[in-house]
């Protein structure tokens, strides 16, 4: 069976404490190049705005990016809130960026974030190709199940 790649909606967001935006601009351009529709809700997004946006846009994927070093801390809080909303229990949600302030120690936060409910974690040692492959695979998967 030939899989048809489906365009899906990706919601790109940062977390409440993170004011960086180049990472979000980059992700938006990258996801658009992969053929997807992007809702970029920007930096310093409070948890309730993130959840309201997810409920409103019903994204096929939520991409959270944080580079200020608090991402591991904020990420756990955010995913707990997202997963406790009945509409968002199964939504694919990934997080990436510079997630801790400890340089190489950042990789240690990955397990915590996965346990808390993220579908994938891309810390800053992961090549961007890994993220692209994840999105492509998700696109194929969505095509099968859609």
């Amino acid at each position: 069976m030939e899989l048809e790649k489906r365009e899906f909606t990706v919601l790109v967001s940062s977390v409440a404490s993170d004011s960086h935006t180049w990472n979000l601009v980059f992700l938006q351009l990258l996801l658009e190049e992969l053929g997807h529709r992007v809702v970029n809700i920007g930096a310093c997004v409070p948890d309730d705005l993130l959840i309201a946006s997810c409920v409103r846009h019903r994204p096929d994927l939520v991409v959270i990016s944080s580079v200020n070093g608090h991402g591991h801390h904020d990420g756990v809080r955010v995913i707990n809130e997202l997963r406790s909303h009945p509409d968002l229990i199964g939504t694919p949600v990934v997080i990436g960026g510079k997630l801790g302030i400890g340089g190489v120690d950042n990789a240690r936060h990955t397990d915590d974030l996965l346990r808390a409910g993220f579908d994938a974690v891309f810390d800053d040692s992961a090549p961007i190709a890994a993220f692209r492959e994840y999105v492509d695979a998700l696109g194929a998967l969505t095509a099968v199940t859609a």
Partner: protein
Amino acid sequence: MSRIAHQVSSAVAFGDFVAEAAAAGRLVVQPRMGFSDPGQMRSGLIATKLADATTVGTITLDSYTRVGADGEARRALAEGVALNGYPIVAHEPSTTAAVVEGLRGRGFPVQIRHGSAHPEPIVAALLGAGFTATEGGPVSYCLPYSRLPLRDSVDNWSRSCELLAAVPDAHLETFGGCMMGQLCPPSLLVAISVLEGIFFRRHGLRSISLSYAQQTDAGQDEDAMRALRRLGREFLDGVQWHVVVYAYMGVYPRTPKGALSLLAGAARLAARTGGARLIVKTVAESSRIPTIAENVAALEHAARAAERAGTAPAGDDDSAVYQEARAIVDAVLDLDPDLGRGLVRAFELGYLDVPYCLHPDNAGRTRGHVDGAGRLAWSRIGALPIGHLVTPPRAEGMTSATLLTALTHVERTFDDERLERTAQMTLTTTTAGTTTAPPSPREHLTSPVTRTVMRVQDKALTAAREYLRDNGFTELLPAVIGPVTDPGGRGSKQVDVDYYGHRYKLMTSAILYKQASLLGFDKMFSIAPNVRLEPPETANTSRHLAEFHQLDVEIAGAKRDDALKVVEELVAAMVDRVVTEMPAELEELGRDKDAFTDLLSGAFGRVTHGAAVADLRGLGHAQSADAEIDWEGEAILSRKSSRPFFITDYPKGSRGFYDREDPAEPGVLRNFDLIAPEGFGELCSGSEREFEYARIVARMRETGENPAKYGWYLQMVREGIPASAGFGIGVQRFVRYLCGLDAVWQASAYPKIPGVVSW
């Protein structure tokens, strides 16, 4: 220079202190330092005050405090989670008072830096703790940093300005010169900086600083600084004001040398164009929150660069940057007598429109790019009131790849500067294939750089000899010629010598004699000359010499891990000795001793050849799995790392017959290379050795060597030699790394560059 000399002012007020330093011709340098732990924050301020530079102190607040999430900050403090700054609202006022007790005041003002669009709690806290200097702005702390409606930020900043203005000595700096400035043409940065300065003035501030951050193109920056100062004279006459430069605010160079060079560029810009103050960045900027020591090193590096900078020739202060900025300022001021309302209206109309800014109140119709000449230019101007001044090129779409290229333009320029300069110095290959020689003997040997480098080499070798002797090694003087020599070496040729009618070789390495030495000495070392006629195309790699030396070590009965341990300890002993005893020399060479912090703090990294190949392929580099890591791949891996690391387990076929094949894993060699960080590449090669006759002969055949050539060696092996492991450290490469030199020939007193006919 003595510390006393920097005490130019006993002023208490921030603005007065900077003004007095400027009058004395000294650039004020300032860190962007913030720690959540009060004790560490105090240590940072003390270190800033004591730095060998004219400094003011900084307390940078954390992200939770910036967004008003003080509960979150308190929770993190209670849980012992480190924050990325000092939470001035969450900490008790008495705690903050203790942080600055006896420090702040006469001759050392301290500024609170944050980034908040609702700054009133912060302003209240800082005033309550006795601080009077801070920074921000209704636009510059709203658009890039928050999602608060601009209208609300304007109201918040109006009230905050009035709170500040009620206090004597209050100083407020606009952050308008940054504004996601990486891809923002300077005229808009200058305009926003000036507009916020006017906003502060209209709300009662009497001491103001205007900021500028860019560094994409030095000439354009000088135009921007002149434009900013001219607009300051035109709009801020009657209040105290100065211009502050921020070291580059975008993606920072990863190499210490690149980072320091970019910082020095910012210091020069400020010093040459009448900037009074500089906010520094450190060598750690690209990877983590910098340490106090890294901050102090940055302050002192910037101060020295400023002292050497001189003054820029009085240039055009009616440049394109000035004209565009003035047109924007005028258009915005004309919108409304109330500048706060005018700013809000200007964003609605797109008179102010910051490229790539995602804030809901930003129109998002402008785009900037780095043009072919390396300057920032408009690719779309949207509704900016500069249509009569600018004709953007046909709008070009930005892709994720070109965005990354543009965002990393400065980082790449400064990280690659060393390589580029080296290529210029060592090689001007023409189509005829001629290459320039290194400097003449007189020029080279009398150069202060060469003399310092040779003293560093002497110090390092002294430390090596002491370490090795203390650990039971005997130094043997090396053989120079022999009937046969090491066949290894990627594509290099051996040199023949006529020895009484027999064709002998100059040693390409000491390996055969090292194994022989073990017959009499269990642990030996030599500092041995090697001659390898490397291919001429290696002349521009910066790390090949046709004649060089190795610090050769061989240990009877040792396994590879034993050899790795000796390499680690030996390298650390040499580095430690030089860092401890020659700090002035390293500074003279522009080498930051902090580059070795990671090296001296623990074991080196280890990665197998297979993992390194996979890593390189993941990065898009086509590395062969069956060969040594190629030069380019080695450089990529080296630049990714902050400390030296070993690559182990090369595949058979990639190295000489003497590297022992792993009995448990046929095809894999029990060998290693040591790779230096920062792009300096391979420093050392070694292995566990083959020592059994049959295996050596078989390996010689596999590697295409004729065993018949190796008469004396094979005869000796047949009679029995000890098992061993050993290595050779390239002395000139190691000294190049220690000194942070552009090219390895600078670490040789008598350089022989491959393919170059020289003295």
